[in-house]
Structures are given as C-alpha cells and as structure tokens.
C-alpha cells in the first residue's frame, strides 16, 4: 500500500512541494535534474575554479523549500559559472533522498534537520552538517483570529499531523516555553494534512498546525482561513532570555565525511557558493522564482514567488549554525530521544571548519 | 410431490424432433409409456437414446413435438455415466437424493443386496466400475419417483450381478413408469420389458400410439 511520502515530519512532506495552486494541469514536472557541469566545463569557456581536480560533487535535495535557495547555484552550474563541478539530483520523495544518502549516491544532501541528526547517529558519525538552509515552516492557521500568541491556546484544541514527529515536538516545546503544561492544550492528531484542512473547514473556531506548502493550499481552498501564528517567529521570541539562542530549523545541508576528508576545499567552496545562492534567492525573488520553476521545484514561477516569504530561506553556518541547530535538536531530543536518532549529536557533527561569518 | 402407490398413469410422446446443428438426431419420434409396464429402448449407438432421455427429464428441449403426462411427476434416473459424488459413500450418495427419509439401517440392508459389505465404508471413488454402476442403480431405485429412466443400467455388470440388479429394479420400480435402454435383448428380457426400437435416424418406433 502507499505510504506517507513524507518522513520524519510534516516538514518533510513540506519539502515535497511548495505553494498553492488549485489546478495542477502541469503534471510534467521534470523529474531529476541532473546537470553535469563537467560538460559545461569541458565545453569550457571558463575555468571551473580553484580546486580544479575534476571531482564532481553529487548534491541531492528535495523539491521544496530547502532547495529554493540552491537554484542560483544550479543555474550557474549549468552555465559553467560555478567554481566546483556539481551534479544535482532533485527528488520529490523524502524516502528517496534517505535512500540516496544511505546508499552513498550523493556527497552532499539537503535534508530535514532531525533526519541529519538521525543519520549522524546511525552512520556512527559518517556525516557532518555544514549549514542550515531553511528555518521553520510551521504555522498555526484558523478562521478564528482571536489567538495571537501561544499562551492563548490554553483550553483549545489544535489539529495537526505527525504524532511523534517534529511538528508535535516543536509545538510542545513552545507550549512549555510559554508556561503551558501538556494538559492545557489538546492535540488532536490527523494522518494527512488534507484531513486537517478538511477539519478546519467544518468549524471556523478550530485551529490547525500546518507546514508551509499546505498552509498555502489550505488558504487557497478556504478563504476564511488565515495564518494566526508563525512558529518560527514565536520560537525566536522564546529565546530572548536564553544564553544560547536556538532557532526553529527545517532544512540543513550535510556532507559525507569521507568526501569531506578528501575534498575539504571543495566543500568550503560549495558553502560559499550555497550562501551566495541563498542570498540571491532572498534578494531577487523574481529571478529566483523563474529559476525555481526551471528547476522543477515548483511548477509555476508565480506560485513560487508567492510561497517564498513563508519558507524562511536562510543561511547559517559555523558557530551560528551550531548554536541554532544544537538547541533545536536538544528541544527535540528532550521530548523524544529517538527523534534525533537516540542520542544528541556531539560536536563532531557540526562542521565549523573553514568558513566563518 | 411424492405420490406413493399412485393410480396408473401414462406419458405420451408425439412427433418429437431434435437436431444438433445440422444433424437430425430424433426424427418424429412418438411413443406411449405406461406406469407398471417397463419399456426398453433399443437402438444403435449414436441413435439418440440418451437424447430422448434428456428431453424427457427436461434437460434438453425438443425442436418440435409434444410430451404429455409429465406434469407433477417426479423423476429418478441412472445416467449413462455414473454421476456419483465421488468422495461420498454409497449411503451418502443415496441420501443425497432421498434426504433423511429412510432410516440408515434400512437403506444399508437394501444396499447389501447389491454391494459387498466391506464397500459400505469406502468413498465410491475407490469402487470398481461395476460397483459404481450398482451404486447408481441403487440410488435410482431408492429415490422416491414416479418415473424411472435408466440409460444402459447394466453396463459393466457380470451376469450374476446383473440378475440380482434386475431383481432389485423390478421390486423397487413396481408400479412406476420405467424406461431403460440397452444394447442386449437379454437385458430387456431380464426386466420383462417391452422393446421399443429407435430407427436408424431416430425415426419412428415402438408399438405405441
């Protein structure tokens, strides 16, 4: 039977698509986007950069928010303007990306944050995280706009998906940060985001917790719905008094440690190129949307443009990444150790090497 | 539907015609059958004996012609093939058609006249050919019926067994309408039956009408 395409979190399934659209006549999204920069390099109008040892870096990502910041780099690669040689594989299903990483079919992968933690533990430290590429994508939606902060959820019922996965743990973390106990809010779990959307349509006073692409879908389907709370912002606000400020994180980038050991310089180059690419996406959403469409991440540029702000594309690396991510993972770990793979990743997990902000 | 010791009745077949595709099997066959007077149908192989039986039993419809006197009558039959429930014992095979009407020990006593005692517990799939035939005969004579049709009932029986079977048939079909087919004059005599002949091509036959 068919399974939930998403792993680990609704955020995982969020990866698969962004943006709303009531029609999807465009069924012909290009599937895997393998662009062999080596060809471009061989056609060679420009030297392919500093390292130049001809190693092709295989990068895997999910079509969705986490790779929206990667499109400029993909475009550059295609045009032979990238410094490294990259080969990109974009997949829709979270299972497939896990398969690619586990099967050593990619060197660098853009993954959900906790999956990175799990993989780190399961591979006995075989990977390192090199950057954060997407912050949180969870939102509270309702037709009832009276709730404007977490503590106002007291006595209410929240409908959400993913029992035992990151959305639940994130929400519980924020609830306890706001001084609410487990019993103050009833969490009603549904199996599918569409089920949540359907439940919200039945009663305007109901509150739902949805990850980004579904937020936009649900809003498009049901005009009375609106976003009442952005959990990413709420998380940041909860850190105000904290010494080390964690952040809510959806997507991170990991590298295979064997590859890292062999080609540290290439990884550093990737990091700077990734950062530039992410910055490009934030600064020039119009062009980025076109590239997103071209890369098949979202079927329509217009839709991509509409979705971009909600996706919290960001680039964190080095110490900043370590602080934000380790705090986030700790929050998950405290709720359920299995969610980060049974242990909290140690310092070796965080690649804080060459790049500094 | 059971009409025991019924007053005599007759069945009249008139101008029965039946063909399969192009080949005419029964060509204006007429006959007259009476209860209490056994009749024996004799005809070459392939002449249409079985076809006539099937039409009488309602398993086949004639192309033209009429049959009178069948309404409300119940049938029992020995088919040309044995048509037994192979996994069942003799008793079970008989009970399949009679229901639980007779007590088992009575039935068993009757069965023993035709079959060896040690075969009673066997499924008929382990019977010899002649034993199966005897089972089919037993089934036909023990089922309550007004009309008994037997298509070559003595197939595969040795002379002694045949005699014994004939005695049983005469006893249990007394007063009923009995029609059977055979290829041997002796068999007809054994049951004291009047002989009806079906012509080469079905044709007309019989002393009837």
């Amino acid at each position, binding site marked *: 039977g068919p*399974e939930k395409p998403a792993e680990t979190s609704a955020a995982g399934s969020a990866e698969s698509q962004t943006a709303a659209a009531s029609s999807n006549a465009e069924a012909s999204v290009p599937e895997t986007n393998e662009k062999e920069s080596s060809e471009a390099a061989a056609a060679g109008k420009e030297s392919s950069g500093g390292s130049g040892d001809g190693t092709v870096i295989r990068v895997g990502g999910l079509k969705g928010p986490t790779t929206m910041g990667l499109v400029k780099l993909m475009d550059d690669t295609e045009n032979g303007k990238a410094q490294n040689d990259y080969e990109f594989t974009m997949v829709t299903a979270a299972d*497939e990306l896990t398969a690619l990483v*586990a099967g050593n079919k990619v060197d660098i992968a853009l993954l959900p944050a906790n999956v990175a933690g799990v993989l780190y533990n399961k591979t006995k430290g075989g990977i390192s995280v090199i950057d954060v590429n997407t912050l949180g994508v969870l939102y509270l939606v309702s037709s009832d706009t009276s709730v404007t902060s977490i503590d106002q959820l007291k006595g209410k019922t929240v409908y959400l998906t993913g029992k035992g996965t990151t959305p639940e743990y994130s929400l519980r973390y924020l609830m306890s940060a706001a001084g609410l106990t487990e019993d103050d809010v009833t969490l009603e779990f549904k199996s599918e985001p569409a089920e949540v959307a359907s439940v919200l349509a039945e009663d305007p006073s109901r509150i739902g917790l949805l990850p980004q692409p579904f937020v936009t879908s649900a809003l498009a389907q049901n005009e009375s719905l609106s976003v009442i709370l952005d959990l990413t912002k709420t998380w940041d606000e909860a850190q105000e008094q904290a010494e080390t400020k964690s952040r809510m994180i959806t997507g991170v980038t990991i590298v295979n440690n064997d590859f890292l050991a062999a080609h540290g310089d290439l990884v550093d180059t990737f990091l700077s190129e990734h950062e530039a690419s992410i910055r490009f996406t934030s600064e020039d959403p119009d062009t980025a949307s076109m590239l997103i469409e071209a890369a098949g991440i979202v079927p329509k540029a217009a839709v991509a443009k509409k979705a971009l702000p909600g996706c919290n594309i960001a680039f964190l690396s080095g110490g900043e990444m370590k602080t934000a991510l380790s705090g986030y993972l700790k929050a998950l770990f405290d709720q359920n150790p299995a969610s980060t793979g049974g242990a909290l990743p140690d310092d070796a997990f965080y690649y804080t090497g060459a790049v500094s902000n | 539907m059971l009409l025991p010791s019924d007053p005599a009745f007759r069945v009249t077949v008139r101008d029965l015609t039946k063909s399969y595709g192009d080949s005419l099997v029964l060509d204006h066959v007429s006959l007259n059958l009476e209860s209490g007077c056994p009749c024996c149908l004799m005809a070459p192989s392939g002449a249409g004996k079985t076809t006539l039986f099937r039409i009488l039993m309602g398993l086949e419809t004639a192309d033209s012609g009429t049959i009178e006197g069948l309404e409300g009558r119940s049938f029992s039959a020995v088919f040309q093939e044995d048509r037994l429930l192979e996994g069942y014992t003799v008793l079970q095979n008989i009970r399949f058609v009679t229901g639980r009407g007779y007590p088992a020990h009575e039935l068993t006593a009757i069965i023993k006249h035709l079959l060896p005692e040690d075969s009673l517990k066997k499924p008929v799939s382990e019977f010899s050919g002649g034993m199966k035939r005897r089972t089919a005969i037993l089934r036909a004579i023990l089922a309550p019926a007004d009309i008994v049709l037997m298509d070559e009932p003595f197939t595969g029986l040795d002379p002694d067994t045949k005699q014994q079977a004939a005695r049983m048939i005469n006893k249990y079909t007394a007063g009923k309408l009995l029609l059977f087919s055979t290829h041997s004059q002796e068999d007809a005599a054994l049951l004291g039956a009047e002989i009806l002949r079906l012509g080469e091509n079905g044709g007309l036959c019989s002393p009837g009408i």
Partner: protein
Amino acid sequence: MHRFPDWSRRTAILLFWLFLWHLASLAVQNQILLVGPLDALKALAVQLASPASWGALWFSFGRISLGFFMAFLAGLLTGSLAFWKPLAGEILEPAIQFMKSVPVASFVILALIWTGAENLSVFISFLVVYPVIHINTLAGLSHADPGLLEMARVFRVPVWRQALSIYRISLYPYLESALKTSLGMGFKSGIAAEVIGVPGGSIGEGLYMAKIYLSTADLFAWTLMIIAVSSVFEKLFLLLLKTIAGNGVPGKEENHAASV
C-alpha cells in the same frame, strides 16, 4: 435471460453507480473529501486534453504492465517448477510467503536504492502479482485430471504434449481468476509505488500533486483513469489468455446454464 441488450444494460449499471456517487457527494457536501462525478469528469476531460496526461499514462502503465508481465511469466515458471519438483516449491515457499506479506514500508528505502523512484512501480507491481500467479499456477496444475494423466503416462506421451493438452485445461480457470484478482491489484500498487517515489511525469505524481494541492476533482479524475485503464487491460489480457490457451476449455457459460 435479460431483456436488454448487453451494452445498454452495462451503461445502465454504470449510470446507476455514478448516480450513487452523485448522491454521496451531495450528502457529504465537502469538496476536499468527495467531489461529484460531474466535477471529476470535467477534470478528466481537461486532463485528457493535455498531452502531458497521456505521457503520464504511458509512463506509468508501461512500467506497471512490464512488472505485471514479468510477474506473470515468473509466476508461471516457478509455479510449474514447484509442481514439477515439490522440493523446489518448498524452497521457494518462504520467499513467496515473504512477498505476500511484507509491507512496502519495510523495504522501500532498499528498493529505492535498487530501482530508483522511476522503476519502483515495476518492482512493486511485480511483487504483488507474482505470488498470485505462482500460487494459482501451482493449484491449477495440481488439479489436472488424474485419469488423463495416467492415460498419458501409459501411452508415454511426451511431457510437453501433456502440458499443452491436459495441464493447460486444468490451469486455465485458475489463471483466469488469478488474472482477474491480480491485474487490478498490480496496477493499483504500481500507482501507490509512484505516490511513494513520485517520479516526474507519472500518474503517481499527478495523484500526489492533486493530494498536496487538495484538488480532489483532479484526484478523482486520475483515479477514474486508473480504474478505466486497468479494466481495459484486464479485458485485453483475458482475451489474450483465451486466444492463447482457451482452446478446448469447457465454456463457463455452459456450466452455468446447466446449473440454472
């Protein structure tokens, strides 16, 4: 037996079900859960007008049929082997049991590595269809008429001729019902595999997108297409089977008539 000609009766039955569906959609009144047949047919018309849908149809059903076909051949082969050499059958038994009862979730990551998302549907439809064909082949061969087999043995009829005449006849009805049960299931699990792997340009992707975008009309349109195509394939395969192996098989019509 029926007063109406075949096609008009079938149409009436189809309309009856569509009407039930329509009533259900009126009762549910929720466009996310259940759209009516009209909306679904409208969406279907839009899809059928687009070449991309035809491409998806070809992509998906081509692959799934491939899996089905391989499973059919493999099932015939190992089913026959298991009949011929019971020990081989016993050795295969755990593997068959495994294929029958292992949930996809258990091995999907491994399967994705082997096959990639694109060919996952080939693999999954194979996995669903194969045990059905194997089991029914074995059952069909086992129920060959023992009397005829003895006859063939006494006359020293070569095995291949026994296969063509005796075993074929006993196998036929089992294969027929195996086809009827497994073809639809193979198609549906193939599509399910595509919903897991979401290869681009597949029907599974279409279904997946329709689900994500909550466009239930599209979801239902794809579903209608899947059901229609697998019905047509089933009829075609049955016809093919009949043409290839149906010679001299007692017609069910007759048997049936005999029982009325």
